[in-house]
């Protein structure tokens, strides 16, 4: 990673640790939400940005993870076990959902995953014996580790931030491994990847499954964060929102989801002055951005950096080692 990039990441990390000490409880709640949703967005970025598979199901996986956590905690299982269960369950379901991706691409896949999200919503709403239907699940406890309770907002934020750090480090490592290269090959030219002897079948399923399991882990934190979940939270809106996070941040950039989630979480608060018109403004901004800079905020920054330093080498500040999308001529 280039020095400029490393400095930016260090500064962001210090800011993320220091920020809550200057915030009111609601502000801490918001940045906790950011940390939690970023995990789901990283997963979607893996599926969409790196492996090139359009998924509108990430919100559903957050929902499955959240319900797994809530139900297992209610049944008296420890947090760690429920957390792992959420990840494994979503990995398995994501793997199965990946099968359509083997047969169909692009818009078809978008529709399959869209249908899946709606089906999950219907199951969560209708199977009242399990999920309590539209009334949702209330009073989800926050975990404690060796006497350190995350009941306080500040503690829960640091817990979420630590989880985010661990999971993103794991993703970073994976993306630089042969797997990560294989994912990019799937996006850039699946047929060529196949002819080079890559098992595209397995990698497509893997990209889906890992992306989904990150969605599930995010949901497993979402449940204790908001402490109340209902099926409506995980309907299509959530999936669209996560998709927009990845795109707005910069799909295929490692740090895209961090930026996108930050925008999606903070923008509504900053735009309180526009009152009810927030979503209209947000949607309009996304459309404008798609016209002028479809590669998202990080793509825009990269372009600006490129213009600032015309001497070649520094242009790849964000782009180090395959962490940004390959440049397609």
């Amino acid at each position: 990673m280039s020095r400029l990039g490393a400095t930016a990441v260090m500064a962001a990390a210090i800011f993320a640790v220091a920020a809550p000490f200057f915030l009111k409880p609601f502000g801490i709640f918001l940045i906790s939400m950011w940390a939690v949703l970023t995990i789901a967005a990283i997963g979607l970025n893996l599926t969409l940005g790196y492996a090139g598979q359009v998924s509108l199901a990430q919100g559903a996986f957050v929902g499955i993870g959240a319900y797994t956590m809530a139900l297992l905690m209610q049944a008296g299982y420890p947090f760690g076990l429920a957390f792992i269960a959420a990840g494994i369950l979503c990995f398995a379901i994501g793997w199965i959902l990946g099968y359509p991706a083997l047969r169909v691409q692009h818009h078809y896949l978008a529709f399959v995953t869209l249908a899946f999200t709606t089906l999950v919503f219907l199951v969560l709403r209708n199977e009242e014996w399990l999920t309590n239907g539209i009334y949702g699940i209330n009073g989800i406890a926050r975990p404690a580790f060796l006497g350190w309770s995350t009941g306080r907002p500040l503690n829960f934020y640091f817990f979420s931030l630590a989880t985010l750090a661990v999971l993103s480090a794991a993703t970073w490592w994976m993306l630089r491994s042969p797997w990560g290269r294989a994912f990019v090959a799937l996006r850039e030219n699946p047929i060529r990847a196949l002819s080079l002897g890559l098992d595209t079948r397995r990698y497509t399923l893997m990209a889906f499954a890992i992306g989904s399991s990150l969605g599930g882990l995010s949901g497993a934190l979402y449940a204790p964060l908001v402490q109340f979940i209902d099926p409506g939270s995980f309907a299509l809106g959530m999936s669209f929102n996560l998709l927009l996070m990845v795109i707005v941040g910069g799909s295929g950039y490692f740090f895209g989801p961090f930026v996108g989630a930050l925008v999606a979480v903070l923008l509504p608060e900053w735009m309180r002055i526009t009152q009810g018109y927030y979503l209209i403004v947000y949607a309009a901004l996304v459309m404008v951005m798609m016209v002028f800079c479809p590669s998202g905020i990080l793509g825009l920054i990269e372009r600006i950096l490129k213009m600032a330093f015309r001497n070649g080498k520094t242009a790849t500040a964000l782009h180090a080692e395959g962490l940004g999308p390959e440049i397609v001529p």
Partner: protein
Amino acid sequence: MASFIQLFASGLATGAIYALIAIGFTLLWQTSQTINFAQGEFVMLPAFFILAAMNAGAPFWLAALIGVALAIVILGLLFKIVIVDPMLRYGVLPLVISTIALSLFLKESAKDFYSSQAQPFPALVPATDIHVFGAVISTQSLAVLAVAVITVVALHVLLHNTRLGRAMQATAQNPTLALILGVPVRRMVLYTFLINAVLVAIASILISPIYLAKFTNGETLGMAAFTAAIIGGFNQVRGAIVGGIILGILDNLSAAYLSSQYRGAFPLLILIAIILLRPHGLLGRPEERTV
């Protein structure tokens, strides 16, 4: 049996509306590879144009004309020029994202600038019932069906029996060749957007008396249009018709005979099954992939 006929007839009417929406959807895909995720909102919106015109004092027929005209300008022309044209060079996905944002934009606009409450919408014909073999069929269903059939026939004549229509088909099948043969491809693409706008406006007039005009209508309608288009075949107009009708009937029958709670689930399961087993749809042609 009587209830079956009843369900079948009302399913046919809903299916005909789905078909109209799905036809527009596939037309856009065929000529410009636009996947319009806002198609449902496109159907939701003209009803509000019409209601606004009626609030301003216009009689229903005039308001309907104004609604169609506004739909052509806003959902046809402006959509093409402002949203689609600048995005086409980036490929399919950015446009998908953009239309998702557009659907949010239209939905929230209808809610904030008109009303978040469901609005009653005037029906085309007074609601009376006709008795056939002991089944009760509403005149509304019949009127819907009649309008939909006339629209589809008119579209068919336009596409197959006129020079313009054949030029549009040529554009859809092979734009490069069409251009070489002197077809004004860009204008033909624009025409399909205008036709789509007319179709969604008609669908809006037909469906709003049944569902009431509500800003959230687009969600279910959009999903129905995708599903219908995929069941029938994405690259065929008749596929969209067949898909729409199958979907409408199935939706009604499954809600009555299987489970009303999972009403929304059956079309989705069929959608997934079709995509897995026959991704080009019942009537569609497989699309080739290029390396």
